[in-house]
């Protein structure tokens, strides 16, 4: 009998080791400057998500106001805020909330890990750290302005236990944003000396001014006088930097954004979009498509296509000195494109926003018009950049703060700078001599200057006139003949309550985060 026994019971513990082959394990990242630049870009990337400034926040949430209404009776989730029909269960709200926090979490990871990276030039590392902190502060400002009390996450999410976090008060969140921006402002790159699109020192000062102004206004009213003074200080930091100014032509500011001409003179910070679908990349937004001049020319794959989902609001149209204000011609189009020809719109309440026009009409010799293309991205998406902070905003923020602190004459001078650029003469000072009169004029001036730039709703809430202005806008529509059959055009103004000045905490957040409670107004 011959026996050879096999020995197969080998121990191969190591054979159970696996290293992901299509991904990089996080511990192995953030080692080099290149790693850090890649990670930093993903923090910027969340600015351009469909749920942030790609579509939701820049267009849909900026509709259903005195400056913009929907042109369709369309109850899709992304438009629910534009109709003021949103609830804690609205997915659009949850999606935006999640993406803003994604930017924050990516920044938190960066802030925790990047210090360990080997970067030759320490100042480059500092600059990257400062940008991550700038973006985190920026996302927090968007959150706190929209929702009020929110969870303040300053460390990255590690696991399932990090679900639970209580809300921080609005005051604490503002303080965090202020502390952060003040801490890093001087470490950021300088406008004009870095790539266009990056956070700069002046962007930090501008954002600080916006933060203080927002904190001083309704419903916060936190340390108002002190805050207004800080608005002035930070605006001055921008004005005195010498890096920024008004362009001579209002129209040129937006042509630069439409045509991606990287000019940092007036635009201090913006969200960058690039139309790269033909390379298979999703880096484009919907500016000028959803909120453009309607042009549904058949089967044009590229070119100035627009669904024209938005009409300009009547209060906006009526606020312009239509004959003299250069901004009116650019911001409002009383025509649309049918079969490659501009056609005049019959009703005033059906005029389109022209600010981000993808195509323009030009007068031919024979008196007819034809259409030229300014931006030819994809049919459904565009590469038009979205302005976050412009120099005229610095001027008007400072003017507002000065007025609130009683220095109305100084404020008028700033207002006139903005008017003059628009081709208007200096305002009759007698009409805006007192604080309230100036404030009222400023309200209209900001709308004329910043319409369709996502500022209006925040402004109205800050001034405490949200309900009043919306109801007036509804009345304007009714008076203009958009009667019962078109009542969906002012559905957003039908039952405005105080709760509509703040968004509800997403239901999912309350479901999964045991320490979370709903906004008092939405309970």
């Amino acid at each position, binding site marked *: 009998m011959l026996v050879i026994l096999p020995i197969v019971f080998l121990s191969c513990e190591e054979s159970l080791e*696996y290293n992901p082959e299509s991904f990089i394990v996080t511990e192995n990242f953030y080692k080099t400057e290149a790693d850090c630049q890649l990670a930093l870009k993903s923090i910027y990337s969340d600015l351009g998500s469909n749920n942030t400034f790609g579509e939701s926040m820049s267009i849909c949430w900026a509709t259903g106001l005195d400056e913009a209404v929907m042109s369709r009776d369309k109850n899709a*989730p992304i438009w629910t805020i534009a109709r003021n029909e949103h609830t804690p269960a609205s997915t659009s709200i949850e999606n935006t909330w999640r993406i803003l926090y994604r930017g924050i979490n990516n920044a938190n990871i960066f802030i925790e890990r990047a210090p360990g990276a080997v970067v030759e030039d320490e100042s480059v590392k500092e600059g990257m750290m400062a940008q991550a902190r700038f973006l985190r502060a920026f996302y927090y400002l968007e959150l706190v302005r929209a929702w009020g009390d929110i969870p303040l996450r300053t460390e990255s999410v590690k696991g399932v236990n990090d679900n639970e976090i209580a809300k921080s008060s609005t005051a604490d969140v503002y303080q965090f944003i202020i502390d952060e921006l003040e801490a890093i402002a001087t470490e950021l790159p300088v406008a004009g000396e870095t790539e266009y699109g990056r956070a700069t020192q002046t962007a930090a000062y501008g954002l600080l001014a916006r933060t203080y102004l927002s904190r001083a206004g309704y419903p916060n009213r936190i340390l108002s006088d002190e805050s207004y003074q800080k608005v002035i200080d930070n605006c001055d930091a921008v004005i005195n930097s010498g890096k920024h100014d008004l362009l001579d032509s209002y129209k040129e500011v937006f042509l630069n954004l439409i045509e991606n001409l990287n000019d940092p003179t007036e635009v201090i910070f913006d969200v960058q979009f690039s139309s790269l679908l033909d390379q298979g990349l999703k880096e484009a937004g919907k500016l000028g498509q959803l909120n453009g001049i309607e042009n549904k020319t058949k089967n044009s794959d590229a070119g100035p296509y627009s669904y024209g989902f938005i009409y300009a609001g009547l209060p906006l149209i009526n606020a312009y000195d239509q004959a003299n204000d250069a901004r009116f011609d650019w911001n409002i189009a009383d025509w649309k494109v049918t079969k490659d020809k501009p056609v005049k719109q019959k009703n005033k309440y059906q005029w389109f926003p022209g600010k981000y026009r993808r195509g323009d009409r030009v007068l031919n010799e024979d008196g007819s018009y034809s259409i030229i293309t300014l931006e030819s991205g994809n049919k459904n998406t565009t590469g038009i950049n979205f302005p976050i902070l412009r120099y005229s905003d610095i001027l008007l923020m400072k003017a507002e703060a000065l007025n609130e602190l009683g220095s109305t004459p100084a404020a008028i001078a700033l207002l006139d700078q903005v008017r003059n650029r628009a081709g208007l003469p200096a305002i009759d000072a007698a009409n805006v001599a007192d604080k309230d009169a100036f404030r009222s004029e400023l309200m209209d001036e900001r709308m004329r200057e910043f319409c369709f730039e996502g500022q209006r709703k925040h402004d109205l809430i800050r001034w405490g006139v949200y309900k009043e202005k919306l109801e007036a806008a509804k009345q304007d529509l009714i008076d203009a003949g958009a009667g019962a059959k078109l009542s969906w055009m002012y559905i957003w103004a039908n039952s405005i309550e105080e709760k509509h000045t703040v968004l509800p905490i997403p239901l999912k957040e309350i479901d999964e985060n045991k320490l979370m409670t709903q906004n008092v107004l939405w309970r």
Partner: protein
Amino acid sequence: MKNINKFRKLAHSSLLLVFMFLSTLVFAQSKKISGVVNDSFGVSLPGVSVLEKGTVNGTATDINGKFSLRVKPNAELIISFIGFQTQIINCTNKININVILKEDTKQLDQVVVVGYGKKDIKDVTGSIVSVKADELAKAPVANFDQALSGRMAGVQVNFTDAQPGEGMNIVIRGGNSITGSNAPLYVVDGIPMESFDSGSINARDIESYNVLKDASATAIYGSRGANGVIIINTKGGVVGRTKVSLNSSVGIQWIPNRLDVMSPYEFVKLQQEIAIGKGGEEPQAFLDKWEDAELYRNDKGTNWQDEIFQSAIIQNHNVSISGGSEKTTHHMSLNYLDQEGTLINTGFKKYNGKIRLDHKLSDKIKTGININYSSMEQSGVKVASNNRVSVLMDALTTRPVEPINDDGLENGVDPDDPDNLRFNPVKTLNNTDKSKQWTIFRANAYAEFKLLKGLSFKATGGYVSDNRKISAFYNADTRQAYKEGGIQGSLTDGLYTTLSTSNTLTYDTKIDEIHKLGVLLGYEYSVKKDESFVAGSTNMPLDNLGVNSLQVGETPLIPISYKSQHNMQSYFSRLDYTFKEKYLFTASYRIDGSSRFLNDNKWGFFPSVSFGWRMIEEPFIQNLDVFSNLKLRAGWGTTGNNRVPNEAAFSIMTATIENGYSFNDIYGKGFSVSNLADENLKWETTYQYNLGLDMGLLNNKLTLTVDAYKKNTKDLLLDAAMAPSTSFSTIWTNVGEVENKGLEFSLSSRNIENDNFSWTTNFNISMNRNKVVSLTGGANELLTDPQWNSKITEKQFISKVGNSVGQFYGLKSDGLYQVEDFNYSNGTGYVLKDGIPNNGSSAVIPGSVKFVDLNNDGNIDHKDRTVIGSAQPKHFGGLGNDFTYKGFDLSIFFQWSYGNDILNVNKVRLENPDIKYNYNYLKSVEDRYMPTNPTNNINIVRGEKSITGAAPEGNQVSDRYVEDGSFLKLKTISLGYSFNKKLLDRTYFTQARVYLAAQNLYTWTNYSGYDPEVSVGKKGALTPGLDYSAYPASKTITLGVDLKF
């Protein structure tokens, strides 16, 4: 990697290990007896076992069926052969015997396949159920799994939908996992596979099909046994004359029912109503286009269902050749199936080829190789795959008639309307070239060595390569080409390979005829590699070249590639002990390691024990003279589950096509964390108790098996929801517990058995109760969106502690608002009376959808949602009757499910009229609310102040759409005739049978959709029983012939 390669070499060589020889044991004999063994046709049977009773002295017949053996003078010989009735022959005074063995299909049942071996059924202590392979072959279906529904107690086999080529959803004893897979482990010819395609095996090659249900049976498969184990062994050759069998069948399939949609007249009336409701220029536009609804009163129009449904041919052809000598046996087969779909331009085709060779190198060494190759192709639009774009919904909602004056739309569809996702369904089906091609190559080889008496070693090596190619091409005349980037196509290529080895050492012995002992030791290792690649391009200038020349496209898609791997390593052992054939004991222990977990969590430990008491051996039972079999079984064991993505436990970073940003207008990629990892992720464990009783009465004419079980799955591998402020949507973690408990009865009765006529009945019924015991971090409920429509994002399913997983969740319908609910004034219009809640929208009118305000806060919102139904059946089962009369055979098989609900969300779109033009609805919408028709059922379209009647966003799914899904199906019926042997003697054939078979012939149900056997929710166990745009089930009738020679 080096280690893996090293190991792979070792695994290969382990198959080739050369082993020992054992000299034959020689026994002292006293007389030589010789003989010949034939079957009832007079054909000699080689390889028949001849054993002297009470000894281990034996031999086997040679190629001519002859044997000779030295035995004691008064010995009894046991003559046995698989597939034949065993005979015992007293050899007193005989030296030469002729034996005729009778074929016996029942005898096959006496041996049951268990993990890593076979067992005599009387020694089994676990819960195992088998299906006869020939029963599966009787049903006229494309893949064998479609014939399994209702056949086995405790095994739920359901369509998700009826698209040709789709696999069935098989759940054994209720779902354990919530977000993980509940699919059982398949062990095909000894190779364990987590994902097995039922099309990759020819139903007629299956020799045995066994399902291991309880932990004592499955624990030997340890980590992967928690969802039950299905063991399929395929046929090998049989020693003897080479037999050829041919089978051919051709049949026809059709979708028996249509949903009743509005007629042209009713449709046009609705258009008019909408136009008047919209006001302005709309009523005139209506007149310009349609003129007058009365003109359409007798118009038949187009029923789009008839346009896209078709009667379709199914054909199936098989040939197999099998035979062998004493040393070598072989089995070869080829199978071709071509199933046209009952929706135009869809279908399924497959080719299977198989070769199995077994060879005895010596008395001690046996080797074999088994090679299976399958090529399958599923073609056509995947009907249930997309949610907002559905060809079936397009067919149901496209307008049934063209207007009198051309409005420039194509069948009511505006290809340029950005919001309109519909498209002419006939064009969609005809111009979309989608195909999914799998080629699965499966080979395994073994070598078995008899080392010592009772001790043997078996090494098996297996290799599976599964290549999946998916191509999708949208010709010019498709919605995609019109609206989403022109003519476009993409190709996906995935290669999934598994290399595995399994080595077992077994020892069986008997001590003093009282103790029977079996020991199994084993070791397994497997490496599964996944690779995939996707490329595509859009904006192609022409569609002639299809996906074969993607470079003609003008806009590429970013290519995607992926590679991953999963390694497993396992040690296992089993001990079987039998005392006096009366008391049975089995214990097993398995240790599994998986590369999916980190550090100390890699290893899982899975013990089991079970006992059997063959009461029939007890005198007090025998004295009762009632039972012919009585056995009590009890077992406990644990099994595991590791079905998470290979990277679930790793925090990993990647860049998507959306992750990047431009500075200076120059784009650059960004990298961010794509998976939040729980580094402590570990095995999910199921603890199961089983108590079973096997009973035979009237000499086993009546047999009954009853099993009761309770299983608790702990440390659930849950893709748990994260708070949105964490920025992650889910994380794989171990949380919560699910319990399943149930009862199963199987009854089998040979009612009549005589030479000319036989009648047998098989019946089984199962009841399973499923309960969530706990959830993430003490949460009370888990809400899930089944994702059937990205615009209806309500979480329509709830898994609540104390209730079953995946119940329907929504508002309770309260009919419609009636005039009495309002105060009316000319200025303000209809204003709700105090105490009457709105429906979530502040604007309602008489005829608007109304809900019950459960929390009485005057508002209808998510807080008013409640459980509105459950997809879990109270019981389900099957009833089969088989008759033979002379040459005729008849099988009638019924399947049922009782007490389950269906969430019919088709009706959310089809019975919920809105103000959209050109949109058709179910006929029931004709009876909608109008001021002249104040019903309480279907909402008004639009009333004054342009208030719509439909439910607002967030409140669309209610108990209105929950229906009773109970059904009884005449699942399979087959009638055959076998020609008698005398007739066949004059031909080449030894057997010839013609048959007519039908599948899904009739369904008794109250369900209003196409078929109650449906579940297309995108979240598996969390979203069961959802019907939306499912491929409708077909009836099939086939005519076939079986020939053997």
